[in-house]
């Protein structure tokens, strides 16, 4: 333990994760929530891609009822299934928050569970508002961004409750380069969020397509720089290398899907009288891989924070006496 009044060392901070025992059911439950949340993101993308956002015109009820299942046709099947999966995820998140609060000894993990619950509630309210206000682009885009934020939190909880995080002593290597790897990962998360918002605004008719397309090369450069730095400088640290490889692979996939989505929706589908299969498939895949990319980047940032501490330059004060003019 760090002595009172003394700043704990990095090693001590990292070892703090040892303060809770590995809880396999808790971890599996967190992984389950992350997986179902991914399905929820796909369901949400299907709603938007099928232009079905307002097929159920009321909220929080569906056609006036809280429990009756409506006829499963047309846009209703997308919108109502999205609502049902969302309610299920909300319920699971309540269980996770309570479970974490009771079972996990780490104080910050208890609050992370509460933050997940707060995020899922905010997300539900945003989903309701976007229906009640007829899909305003700002609210719909916020709904998209907060949804992916919740997915990242769910993935982070799954990581923090995993056996490796809890039981292993982290392998570390000092970062002496500038900009630091942690700065690059945080910058990657930032440009991805900007890209997510630009894409969501385009999808929800609040903005043209070109800001999203113009930002794509910036995202590609920042993420490639980050991934290459992580893979080349810290290739021996598996916890850093693996998410970096995943991030790079997802980035390449995402760029291809973005091109496909642009071609099917903007170039070919601008006069479409209804959403077509190719544009639905490409845009839903683009959203899904985008969410995975953001989560992989967040995981990379967490692992870099844990395994690659920043080397601080110490200022050496001169002890030589200054020459004094006579």
């Amino acid at each position, binding site marked *: 333990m760090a002595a009172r009044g003394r700043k704990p060392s990095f090693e001590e901070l990292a070892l703090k994760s040892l303060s809770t025992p590995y809880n396999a059911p808790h971890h599996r439950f967190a992984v389950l929530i992350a997986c179902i949340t991914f399905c929820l993101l796909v369901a949400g993308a299907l709603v938007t891609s*099928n*232009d*079905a*956002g*307002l*097929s*159920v*015109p*009321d909220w929080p009820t569906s*056609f006036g009822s809280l429990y009756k299942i409506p*006829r499963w*046709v*047309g*846009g*209703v*099947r997308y*919108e109502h299934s999205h609502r049902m999966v969302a309610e299920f995820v909300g319920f699971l998140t309540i269980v996770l928050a309570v479970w974490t609060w009771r079972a996990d000894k780490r104080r910050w993990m208890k609050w992370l569970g509460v933050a997940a619950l707060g995020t899922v509630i905010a997300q539900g309210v945003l989903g309701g508002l976007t229906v009640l206000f*007829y899909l305003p*682009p*700002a609210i719909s885009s916020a709904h998209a961004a907060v949804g992916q934020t919740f997915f990242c939190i769910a993935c982070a909880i799954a990581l923090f409750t995993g056996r490796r995080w809890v039981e292993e002593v982290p392998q570390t290597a000092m970062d002496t380069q500038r900009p630091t790897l942690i700065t690059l990962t945080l*910058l990657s998360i*930032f*440009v991805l969020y*900007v890209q997510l*918002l*630009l894409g969501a*605004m385009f999808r929800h008719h*609040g*903005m*043209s397509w070109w*800001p999203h397309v113009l930002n794509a090369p910036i995202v590609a450069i920042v993420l490639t720089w980050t991934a290459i730095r992580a893979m080349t400088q810290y290739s021996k640290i598996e916890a850093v290398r693996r998410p970096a490889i995943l991030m790079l692979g997802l980035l390449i996939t995402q760029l291809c899907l973005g091109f496909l989505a642009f071609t099917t929706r903007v170039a070919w589908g601008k*006069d*479409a*009288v*209804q*959403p077509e299969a190719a544009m639905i498939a490409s845009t839903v895949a683009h959203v899904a891989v985008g969410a995975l990319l953001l989560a992989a980047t967040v995981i990379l940032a967490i692992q870099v924070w844990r395994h690659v501490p920043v080397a601080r330059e110490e200022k050496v004060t001169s002890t030589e006496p200054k020459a004094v003019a006579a």
Partner: protein
Amino acid sequence: MRLKLLLTFCVPLLGFCVLTACNSQKSIDQSPTAALSGPPAAPIDPATVASVSGTVHFDGTAPEAVPIDMSNDPACKGDNKAETVVVNGGKLANVFVYVKDGLGTFPAPANAVVIDQTGCRYRPHVAGVMVGQKLDIRNDDPTEHNVHAIGMQNAQWNESQMPKAAPIEKSFDHPEIMLPIKCNQHPWMKMYVNVVANPFYAVTDANGKFEIAGLPPGDYTIAFVQEKMGEQDQKITLGAKDKKTLDISYKAQ
């Protein structure tokens, strides 16, 4: 260092906000509603009324009607061709024609304009209604629909309607041209309501023909609006009892 970080993160965010603001301003300006409101119109002398009629032509090769896939609802059966551009022998249907300028405002008539949902399509595809006039939307399909009016000048609304349910009764408070009404359950279902301040309007029939009768003598701007190809305006002067012809053409895009 902190300033650099602040700039790195805040400048793109600021840019995003500016882009969003510019775009929302643009979306308001995009509304084709012209200055349709004005002083109340003078009483019309039936002995002097004139009329204008004509044909809307389509120059060039007509686009093939796109087939609609209605498979997501087994209850939807019927004509499955898109009505975005409907051309018959070089004549353009579903063009809204109205007196854009030269008249005051008129009180709304008591009768309702009826829109029917049948075969998972709106009938008619393009309709005119006066400000304050009742609009009855019926559902003759064996499936439910939601009726979503996406007004820019008028309030949006979205209501579900069960099969054979009572008509949805609505009216609009402001003039607005090509106000879309759509069904989000059946995404191909879309029609346009044109809300005008006077009763002098028409929609071209299958042969591209229209007639606006009962106009008092005067100078007018007649506007032709097609949902995809936009608006064309024509000036016309009508004397007492005139019967003038006004033909226009839309070129293939």
